[in-house]
């Protein structure tokens, strides 16, 4: 680790940080920051649809497929006596090759038995291999242009000019406007392509338009962050946004926002710290946003999901406990608020110590038991709830056993209140039945009628 330690990171001063963040960090820095922030917005917007359409790796394929286009465009320009390194020429070649790559993938996946992922991998590697052959040929020409071309692979954010930034700005605005105009069509194709097809929408054309927007963003981003990292800017903000919401327009906005933040913060860090290459840092910022979303997003995040699962299990267990207490007191002919030891509840034998604590704390926090310790004493709320639970459970049991012929052991509709679902007439008959069997729960847990 000596190499890393020896590199000696120099921390920027606070005024420097403020200046850069307020876009006062010098002309070049400002241009780069504005450029990549806009690029992030555009990439996040188109990425939303690529991710939802399960085409994330398509952008990867496309960006690799641009390489031969760049090389061939250079050769064509030189052969025609033009300046080979001019950016519009190279990006034009890149766009054409990207579109051809997408078309080939589409064709293979649609017309052969090979799956789409094999088609993407084949196009990606063969096109890139071809690009590499073309580059090695350009190298033999000895014009020194290959360095300028291979920078597309890793990107060179720092070299962004004001004109590049303006191009990116124009493209970003175009992409956002196109997305707004076609929002309804994109949504339909993303969520239910079969339905869209049946309804007579030109699904293939809409699909191609969607991919076309991704091509545009990829090509514009090539120079800024490089062909491998531009796909990160397309995929990651959109994938991160997916954790926060189920609404498409909100997801699009969040993805664009994440893209913008990644670009802005990444470019600022790169300007402030030595040896922080902008392309890599931008993607790492996006990656950090993804990890935060993955764990902490309230909707689909991992922690929120675990918390929901835990709560559900606690709720189910609490219902078990309430019913257990009801049945215990019922059997003893004692009032419902009589203390009952957890040892008397058969299912509590399998509880681990932390789980026991969690269940008791949960019941106590809900105001269902008087103290979070055994023996359990139900509060008035707890007693009422225990009665409702038991009554509902037994009604369902009776209903399923008598009317649906399902074994009572399978009946576990704890949460549903029978009288909300079943016809009042049926409930009345079931109650009669339960009363005849001596199993009709009484509010307050009064002594059950002695059987036989």
């Amino acid at each position, binding site marked *: *680790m000596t*190499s*890393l330690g*020896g*590199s000696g990171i120099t921390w920027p001063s606070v005024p420097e940080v403020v200046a850069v963040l307020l876009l006062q960090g010098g002309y070049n820095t400002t241009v780069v920051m504005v450029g990549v922030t806009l690029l992030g917005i555009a990439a996040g917007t188109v990425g939303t649809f690529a*991710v939802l359409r*399960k085409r*994330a*790796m398509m*952008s*990867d394929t496309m960006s690799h497929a641009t390489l031969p286009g760049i090389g061939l465009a250079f050769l064509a320009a030189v052969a025609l006596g033009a300046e080979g390194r001019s950016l519009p020429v190279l990006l034009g070649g890149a766009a054409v090759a990207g579109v051809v790559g997408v078309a080939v993938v589409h064709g293979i996946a649609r*017309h*052969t*038995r*090979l*799956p789409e*992922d*094999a088609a*993407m*991998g*084949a196009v*990606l*590697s*063969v096109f*890139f*291999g*071809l690009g*590499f*052959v073309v*580059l*090695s040929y350009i*190298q*033999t020409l000895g014009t020194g242009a290959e360095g300028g071309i*291979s920078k597309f*692979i*890793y990107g060179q954010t720092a070299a962004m000019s004001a004109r590049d930034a303006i191009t990116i700005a124009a493209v970003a605005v175009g992409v956002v406007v196109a997305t707004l105009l076609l929002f309804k069509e994109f949504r339909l194709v993303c969520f239910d392509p079969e339905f869209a097809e049946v309804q007579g929408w030109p699904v293939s054309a809409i699909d191609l338009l969607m991919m076309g927007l991704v091509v545009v963003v990829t090509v514009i981003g090539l120079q800024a962050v490089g062909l*491998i*990292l531009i*796909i*990160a800017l397309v*995929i*990651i903000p959109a*994938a991160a946004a*997916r*954790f926060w919401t189920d609404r498409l327009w909100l997801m699009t906005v969040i993805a664009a926002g994440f893209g913008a933040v990644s670009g802005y913060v990444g470019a600022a860090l790169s300007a402030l710290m*030595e*040896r*922080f*290459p902008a*392309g*890599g*840092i*931008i*993607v*790492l910022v996006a*990656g950090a946003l*993804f990890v935060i979303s*993955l764990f902490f997003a309230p909707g*689909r995040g*991992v922690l929120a999901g675990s918390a929901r699962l835990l709560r559900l299990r606690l709720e189910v267990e609490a219902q078990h406990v309430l019913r257990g207490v009801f049945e215990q007191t019922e059997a003893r002919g004692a009032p419902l608020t009589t203390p009952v030891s957890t040892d008397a509840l058969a299912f509590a034998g399998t509880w681990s110590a932390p789980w026991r604590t969690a269940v008791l704390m949960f019941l106590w926090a809900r105001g269902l038991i008087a103290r979070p310790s055994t023996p359990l004493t139900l509060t008035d709320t707890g007693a009422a709830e225990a009665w409702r639970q038991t009554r509902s459970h037994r009604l369902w049991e009776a209903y399923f056993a008598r009317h649906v012929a399902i074994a009572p052991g399978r009946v576990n509709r704890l949460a549903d209140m029978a009288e909300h679902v079943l016809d009042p007439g049926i409930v009345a008959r079931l109650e009669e039945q339960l009363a005849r069997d001596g199993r009709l729960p009484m509010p307050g847990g009064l002594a059950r009628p002695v059987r036989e």
Partner: protein
Amino acid sequence: MSLQTFLQLDLPALLATLFATMACALLGNFLVLRRQSLMGDAVSHAVLPGIVAGFLIADSRATWPIFVGATVAAITAVVLIDLVRRFGRVEAGTAMGVVFSIMFAGGVVLMEQAAASNVDLDAECVLYGQLEDILWLAPTGLASLIDPVALSQMPREVVTLAVALAVSALAVGLFWKELKITSFDPSLATTLGFPAGAVNLGLMILVGIVAVAAFEAVGSILVIAMFICPAGAARMLTDRLATQVRLSLLFAAVSSIGGYTLAAFGPLWLGMEHSLAASGMIAVVSGVVLGLAIVFGPRHGLLARRRPAVVVEG
């Protein structure tokens, strides 16, 4: 071109390519069937931070720390992709894209730190390979081919890749039945008691190791191509797995020899002085083979499907 330059320059490079491409093609059969073709792509990008870290920690260009770093990174990527997919409930392609691009970005940033300590680590060699640098200086003539002393000086890459091929072949041979059933019908495999998850993880780790072993010699692009193109071409020609595997190995060999020859000697035939990038050319040839198989495949090819069903006239 004399025999000696062929033996010293071209033979070791060809052998390394052959072993690398055949090992990749062999495993690629199962990747294509499992719709995990892009795993090669994901792994090949994700190894970058491992390579740079191995390099920084060992502070040298010695091979084994880099190899260990790359292997650790490859396995990390495979496991992370699986975790993100399952716990984040994210589609497989998205999970791959997210994980590998973040790891690649980490590698790019780390590389910049390495550059700061005044050491030269060429990332492009990972991308393109160093096929042209594999030399076997020992041979003096054809007799060297059976001379143990000369053979023992075979370049390390060739030996490593031969081992990688042998290990893959052994693993595929031993677990043939398991691989076959889990590739075609994972749920049936699980019902029958085959550990589909374990077989999958084992295959992925093997893919990671073979990919890492092959990167150095032939470059990641060729590795990605070889995981897919030969197996895909073979799949267009047959419905039997054993035949498909044999065909894919044949296609890998044909692409290697054809591509290498075209790159090394093709330009000379055309009157140009320099040879072209061999790994790129091999990838292109494998793509051509795939294209031919797609068009001319006897039953599943485009032409065969377009032809109307044979009508027996009586």
